[in-house]
């Protein structure tokens, strides 16, 4: 096992640098050490000016997406010795502007995300604003979109997308997968509103199905599959072949549901 790994880190400060450049640091490595740990070592011991974004350190928040040995992934759940033996290249996510060093500007991604209405859309807005009951959804209906809810908006899929590399106006895998997540939700009635964007000239039809988005996703989401579902639904909607389904109805108000027979009643209130 090598005692030290060369970290080739892309550095860039827009205030004083003309272009990004690579700086090499030697980092002592032990088993189990993540790339994020390595960056912390550099910051603490070698170069305090290095900038990157992170928060949870456990693959949940999606802040530390970066390009490690040419692959977009999270620095916090990638162990150094799993991907490097002597050298490791660390760069910012491609397809985004760089704020500084390893910090990408994710604003364009979030603007595209908001544009696809990533929330439940229903005609009964009063019910959404002030819920007075539960909407019934079977486990099978939940399964239709569950995997797309695991997205943590880290931007790795956007960085790996070859279409987005040339077409900056393309919606991209993350927003399109989010659109599919809500389109497939039986509580939602906003598919036709989302079709205006997902079916536009920079929407789902620009996907070449390279599949890189699904390959790099650190949460196992399959955005490429979501985009193919979107394409199919768009064509069915255009040909008027899609089944018109009403969003699922409200079952009952709080406390009005029938408790199951084998559940022990709650003890009486003491206060």
């Amino acid at each position, binding site marked *: 096992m090598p005692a030290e790994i060369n970290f080739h880190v892309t550095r860039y400060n827009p205030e004083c640098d003309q272009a990004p450049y690579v700086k090499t640091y030697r980092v002592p490595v032990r088993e189990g050490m993540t790339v994020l740990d390595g960056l912390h070592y550099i910051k603490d011991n070698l170069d305090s000016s290095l900038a990157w974004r992170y928060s949870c350190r456990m693959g949940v928040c999606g802040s530390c997406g970066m390009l490690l040995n040419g692959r977009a992934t999270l620095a916090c759940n990638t162990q150094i010795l799993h991907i490097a033996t002597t050298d490791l290249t660390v760069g910012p996510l491609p397809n985004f502007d760089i704020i500084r060093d390893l910090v990408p500007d994710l604003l364009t991604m979030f603007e595209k995300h908001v544009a696809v209405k990533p929330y439940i859309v229903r005609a009964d807005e009063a019910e959404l604003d002030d819920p007075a009951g539960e909407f019934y959804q079977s486990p099978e209906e939940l399964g239709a979109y569950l995997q797309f809810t695991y997205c943590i908006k880290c931007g790795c899929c956007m960085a790996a997308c070859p279409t987005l590399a040339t*077409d900056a106006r*393309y919606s991209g895998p993350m927003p399109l997968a989010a659109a599919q997540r809500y389109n497939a939700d039986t509580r939602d009635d906003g598919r036709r509103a989302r079709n205006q964007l997902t079916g536009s000239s920079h929407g789902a039809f*620009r996907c070449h199905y390279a599949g890189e988005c699904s390959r790099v996703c650190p949460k196992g989401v399959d955005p490429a599959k979501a985009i193919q579902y979107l394409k199919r639904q768009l*064509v069915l*909607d*255009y040909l008027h072949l899609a089944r018109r389904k009403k969003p699922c109805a409200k079952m009952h108000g709080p406390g009005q549901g029938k408790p199951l027979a084998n559940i022990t009643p709650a003890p009486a209130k003491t206060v």
Partner: protein
Amino acid sequence: MRETKYWTWHMAAGVVIFFLLGLHMLIMHVGGITHLFAPHGGEATSKVNSLYRDGSLFFLTTYVLLLGVALYHGLYGLRTILFELTLKPAVEKAVSVVLLVAGLGLFGLGAWAAFATHAIAIAGARG
């Protein structure tokens, strides 16, 4: 939804091209075995066999149809490639108009050639 319409027809055109090119391959490249649509014998590309097909209403239809779907399929593909260069919306609109005009012009020219050949073949058959 306009792009959905364009893309759906792009896919449909691809399927039509598949069958029409299959027919083309059968006639032109396996003709020595099948003698399909070459009733006068010999090469499928010989003058008599070509005039036989040119005078057929079925082939006139397939020529014009293949011309239309191939132009649409190809020009939509070219438009897609150009759109992926992050053009300004006004430039995108100009590209669409130019490709539409070019497509209609080429279709008109090709259809005129197919109809003219059909008329010549019919006239030749009547003597």
